[in-house]
């Protein structure tokens, strides 16, 4: 095989990040738009205008989420098993939102009844707000450690409860995530819409950007004092994927240790802040391209910050730290990681190519006067 096991694990850790960022950057703006729908669009014409800015693309964007699920299953099966069954009811809420979303987009304008449309608008708003919040809450819990362990057959057991997920730090992360996606949706609307909805989105976006900056900073201080997870002794980065064969301790400030070792990493959270500031500038000066670039950078920076802070931990166990999932002991086999990399290298560029083509075809603003020609 071209790469050894250690390199492949690193690549797949990075690809996991790439997929999550791609999901948040693409599907993030349409979730943000859905969340903003009742706030920025008054009357059916404006509602349809706003929905149609994402109407032709949300379906493709959502595949990043599905692909994320598939890639975690294929490359990090233990993570897939533990996190999805552990966060069971939270995952169910996300699934409910993602079931309702496609249907809401598709069915809303298929009847002329005002009550019908108002109910689907509410459903769309729900399907934008809820996943954005829960993804953040989930990340907040991951950073603090999640109560799970394995038995000797590697059957995972989760010992927490749904309401324990809703702790203060996790809720803070939920708000960061929500504010970030609302900002992203607002900058998208600044580019793709015009008139009142674009103007309202611009004003809400300015507030959201400020919220992102403040809450992300508070989160950073919180993490610097939080108990992080660290492996005792050295791990074999080429060893078998068995999470029972190491010792892990918790220690305050460990989540910042990587920045001490690699000061260049400070650029990552800086992009998170800088992106939000750039988005603010773009919204202020009404330069849409600038604000959309800014919100994209901010989303990417914030998500990547979580990854590099925790590396090489992927999912720490608070009840049995030794069972935590690491980059070195939770991946698929060497062979599977290799096959999957080949598939990705061949197929992903093709995906990017036709996705770019679709956005090019759809280039330009969606106006209220256009909506009667379109489907939604």
């Amino acid at each position, binding site marked *: 095989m071209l790469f050894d096991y250690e390199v492949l694990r690193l690549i797949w850790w990075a690809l996991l990040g790439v997929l999550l960022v791609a999901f948040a950057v693409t599907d993030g703006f349409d979730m943000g738009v859905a969340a903003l729908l009742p706030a920025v669009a008054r009357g059916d014409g404006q509602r349809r205008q706003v929905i149609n800015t994402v109407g032709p693309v949300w379906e493709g964007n959502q595949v990043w989420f599905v692909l994320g699920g598939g890639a975690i299953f294929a490359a990090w099966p233990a993570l897939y098993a533990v996190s999805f069954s552990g966060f069971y009811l939270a995952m169910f809420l996300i699934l409910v939102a993602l079931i309702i979303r496609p249907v809401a987009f598709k069915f809303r304008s298929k009847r002329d009844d005002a009550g019908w449309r108002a109910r689907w608008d509410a459903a769309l708003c729900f399907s934008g707000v809820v996943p954005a919040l829960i993804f953040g809450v989930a990340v907040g819990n991951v950073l603090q450690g999640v109560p799970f362990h394995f038995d000797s057959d590697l059957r995972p057991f989760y010992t927490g409860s749904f309401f324990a997920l809703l702790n203060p730090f996790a809720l803070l992360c939920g708000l960061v995530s929500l504010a970030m996606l609302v900002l992203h949706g607002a900058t998208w609307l600044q580019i793709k819409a015009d008139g009142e909805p674009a103007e309202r989105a611009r004003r809400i976006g300015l507030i959201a950007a400020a919220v992102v900056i403040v809450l992300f900073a508070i989160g950073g201080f919180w993490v610097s004092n939080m108990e992080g997870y660290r492996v005792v002794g050295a791990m074999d980065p080429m060893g078998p994927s068995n999470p029972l064969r190491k010792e892990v301790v918790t220690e305050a400030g460990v989540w910042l240790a990587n920045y001490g070792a690699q000061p260049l990493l400070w650029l990552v959270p800086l992009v998170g802040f800088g992106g939000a500031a750039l988005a603010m500038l773009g919204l202020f000066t009404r330069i849409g391209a600038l604000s959309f670039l800014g919100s994209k950078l901010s989303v990417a920076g914030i998500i990547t910050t979580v990854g590099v802070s925790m590396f090489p931990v992927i999912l720490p166990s608070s009840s049995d730290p030794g069972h935590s999932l690491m980059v070195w002991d939770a991946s698929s086999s060497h062979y599977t990681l290799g096959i999957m990399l080949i598939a990705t290298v061949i197929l992903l560029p093709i995906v990017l190519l036709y996705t770019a083509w*679709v956005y090019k075809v759809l280039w330009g603003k969606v106006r209220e006067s256009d909506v009667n020609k379109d489907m939604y």
Partner: protein
Amino acid sequence: MIDATLVELSRLQFAMTAMYHFLFVPLTLGLSFMLAIMESVYVMTGRTIWRDMTKFWGLLFGINFAMGVATGIVMEFQFGTNWAFYSHYVGDIFGAPLAIEGLMAFFLEATLVGLFFFGWDKLGKVQHLAVTWLVALGSNLSALWILVANGWMQNPVGSVFNPDTMRMEVVDFAAVIFNPVAQAKFVHTVAAGYVTGAVFVLAISAYYLLRHRHEALAKRSFTVAASFGLAAALSVVVLGDESGYTITDNQKMKLAMIEGMWHTEEAPAPFALFGIPDREAQETHYELKIPWVMGLIATRSIDQEIPGIRELMALSELHIRDGLLAYDALETLKVDESNAEARQTFLENQEYLGYALMLKKYVEDPRDASDEQIAMATRDALPNVFALFWSFRFMVVIGFYMIALFGLAFYMVSLRRRVPRWFLRVAFYTLPLPWVAAELGWLVAEYGRQPWVIEGVLPTFLGVSSLTVTDLLITVAGFLVIYTTLAVIEVKLMLKYIRKGPEEEESADNLARLDERFSPAFNRPQE
């Protein structure tokens, strides 16, 4: 030990959400190709009526597609949420086709389907046609990868258990992709989807023809459906996946159960046309057999034996005992990785490890199992023969009925015989049948695989997540409420748009002329 109620609820939820998802999949598979065919005619002939057709059937396609996407997302995540041990145990193999499906297929159809609807004014004719074909290609490739994953559950090739990681791992990915069971299933499933699309178009066109509405469009649609449907119906039956049933012991068990064949019959085995299989007495009452047919269908030969249920059960018991040797060696390896003797014993018996795991239903440590518990586990290898026997027969009957229906329809439209009104009514009432057949087919495939989730490797009950019964009650109830509501809304919308009919951009004069000019097969009888 694993809570039996938890297992039953997890299975119920999976069966419910999967069967619901598959109400939308076959129509997407078939209709996407029919849209591509209709639009191709439009691009080649330049006649607006064919674009009207593409747009009208496309509208119904869109309603169905949204439901397929919405319910498909649940499938991708449900392995992790509800089958966590399964996910860990086989994720190294099973996850890959799912991820590749996303990359190669789902991205293609989902990204381009937006342009299908929004792109009519933004794209050139040929560009739009290309988009439509790519959506059809994407949805069919999607079926390919999902069935590669499912085929592996039926016939787990190209993989071994790794005692260091306590899970199955891939050793030969090509074997997983070119798994004969997966390939047979793929062809059978997409062909069934084409039949579904064809019946949908045929039935609704018949409805318009019966009411003398939109006749120009309905006649053309009827003709497309008749030809596409005949080819598809023939493929479904001829390429039925029975040929895959001779490959493994468990596939053989499924075959024996479908046939209610308790004992090995002399080759070539007869086909039981009718019978009442009795699980307790282990025999089939009132059997009506046609000699030779089964042997020919299943083995494509006259001298190969098909083993009976009892013989296969006896084999199961032997496997359980060999599996116990593997299990014992594995327990040694857990505490002492470097024990060479245990590793050797494990390697020699590893293919039967799954059979020892069957005992975990009755005893914490399979090595403590009594002879009676082993006998119980052996009996578990036998699911509900009656249900399989009859599900299969109903499915096959529907399959042959489809050939007759499309054969007649094709004969009438191609030889320009008049299509009588009774035939239009029959075509209309056929509408639900392809869905019935598809669900029965999955019942045979998945229920027939029990008690295994991965045949011979992992018993179903072991695969579940460590959740509580309350967790499951909440989500089963939740899915039930949401899915029922959506089903009602979906059907209402479909009916609304079918009643409303297509919006023809073709002018009224033209339509009348087009109506006259088309095949005389649809001419009304002289009063």
